[in-house]
């Protein structure tokens, strides 16, 4: 007679999202990134309340005032002022809101169209897919900045137009990663099995395949966010993005460039806040990717 009852029943399996979080938590750098990112997001959401002044409020008596911690700095202007006497701290807060929200919209739009096109193209397959993907591949030989510059050149400068331009340039990447993921999945036996069971059309696409490529889309999404911020601010910097009175990180740097020597803080501080933001997004993005990749270790 056995002395012990069987102690190894089936393990309690976690819900995928729970399991994802369980794995993600163990990654210290990714958690650090998430912390910083949430902090930045909170600050930017609350920025109208936190910013001491209007973004375009000018203080004629305080042109090019140094940051508050330097010798000739003034306490009421934390990060100093620019050549028009505008408070840099307020401008960073309000400009960041513009940059980040535009970037998110851009990625969302690019993902929506790119993923849909990728899904349809790879699902239909055959000649249609061959032609579509070659056109997209051709399109990708144009460097992203050149594409978005051309779009802006035609539509004219402005925040909305630059957002359209960047999402236009970003579309092919979503198309490509979706298509690649689809092609991998469509080679797997479960797909053949589902087809033999009689599944077809929309059902096959949405119920059988889609859940298995969400990881790939999610990874592309998180990686694209930092690219979108960089590209939008680059256009802003070159003067094709947000036009005054709108404030935007790239535009702030573009305006400050001409007096960067006299007032280096007008370059340092907005740039550093950009760097920290993109850095934390990249840490989170890497964390998400690594978690998905190590997913098979989770039983």
């Amino acid at each position, binding site marked *: 007679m056995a002395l*012990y009852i*069987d*102690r190894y029943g089936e393990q309690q399996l976690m819900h995928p999202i729970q399991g994802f979080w369980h794995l993600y938590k163990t990654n210290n750098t990714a958690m650090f990134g998430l912390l910083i990112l949430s902090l930045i997001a909170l600050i930017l959401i609350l920025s109208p309340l936190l910013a001491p002044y209007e973004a375009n409020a000018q203080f004629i008596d305080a042109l090019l005032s140094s940051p508050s911690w330097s010798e000739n700095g003034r306490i009421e202007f934390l990060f100093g002022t620019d050549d028009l006497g505008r408070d840099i701290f307020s401008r960073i807060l309000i400009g960041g809101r513009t940059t980040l929200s535009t970037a998110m919209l851009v990625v969302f739009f690019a993902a929506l169209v790119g993923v849909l096109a990728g899904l349809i193209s790879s699902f239909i397959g055959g000649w249609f897919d061959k032609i579509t993907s070659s056109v997209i591949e051709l399109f990708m030989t144009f460097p992203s900045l050149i594409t978005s510059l051309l779009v802006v050149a035609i539509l004219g400068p402005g925040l909305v137009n630059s957002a359209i331009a960047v999402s236009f340039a970003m579309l092919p990447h979503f198309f490509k990663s979706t298509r690649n993921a689809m092609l991998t999945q469509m080679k797997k036996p479960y797909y053949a099995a589902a087809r033999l069971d009689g599944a077809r059309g929309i059902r096959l696409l949405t119920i059988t395949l889609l859940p298995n490529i969400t990881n790939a889309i999610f990874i592309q999404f998180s990686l694209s966010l930092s690219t979108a911020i960089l590209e939008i601010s680059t256009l802003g910097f070159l003067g094709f993005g947000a036009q005054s009175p709108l404030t935007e990180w790239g535009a702030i740097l573009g305006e400050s460039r001409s007096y960067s020597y006299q007032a280096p803080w007008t370059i340092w501080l907005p740039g550093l806040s950009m760097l920290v933001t993109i850095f934390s997004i990249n840490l989170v993005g890497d964390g998400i990717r690594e978690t998905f990749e190590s997913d098979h*270790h989770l039983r």
Partner: protein
Amino acid sequence: MNLLQIEDLSVSFPSLYGEICAVSNSSLSLKPGEIRGIIGESGSGKSVLAQALLGLLDPSATINFDFYSFDDTIVTKSDYDVIRQGASIIFQDPSTSLNPSKTIGNQLWETLYLHHKDASRDFLKQESLKLLHDVGLSTPESLLRTYPHQFAAGVNQRIMIALAIACSPKLLVADEATTNLDMTIQSQILDLLSKLSREREMAVIAITHDFAILAETTDTTSVMYCGYILETGPTRDLLTHPRHPYTKALVSSIPQIGPLRKSRSHLYALKGNVPPAHKVPVGCPLGPRCPRAGKICVQLPKYQNEENRHYRCHYPLEDSLWEEHL
């Protein structure tokens, strides 16, 4: 005199569930020219054990042992050079164990060169042709300039063996070396391994989960379960008269054809499943699944030695009992 001796080897890896012991308190000794089989279910730590012997594990692994000697030299945790100079390993999948971007001749020359630093080019070439001939490959001349991807798995495994014996090792570790091959190729490779072992006085550690391989090629066998070596002994003796209940369960699970075939009721199957690596029981790892277990089994049994048999069990099977069960 032992070629290889290791006492109390433990290997653990970090994981989500804390440190996982892949190999626990295992000792192993090997005589020169001995062919040792290591058998166990997947996940029992056979491969980890073999790779730990050669220091091939991921840096994240923690390796501990009390004593390790190879060929009369002490091996330390920081320096595996001694054993690497005198041992080689071949793996399961020959298509990934050869460097894909180098020609076969190139890979052979390199290994030979490292062991005969001042040999002439001609000598190296003759030597590599001889090696290829030794592993039973015809037209070795034409092979030298080809790449691994151009051959079938069987040929690649022969090349792999040639490469492994190029440094005239005293020990060859074959990590599931024939698992991926077709039946007929499998027996060819096994014959080749035992022939080489005899000719060169080369000890072999053959890791497998196939009893046919054990019975056919090995001199001695160790049985592993959940990271522990539960029983070691001469293969024939071990298979016909197992001492450890787990060995018996394994032996009974071999399907038989013909007159030896037992009726289903006689199959000696263990209850339950192999525990996941992070839930290995305290004490005897087999404890909760073992039909003979008693209260004392919550303590890890010490090795019991009996002539050339060693086993870890509080309630070993006696020869008489074995007859009864049959």
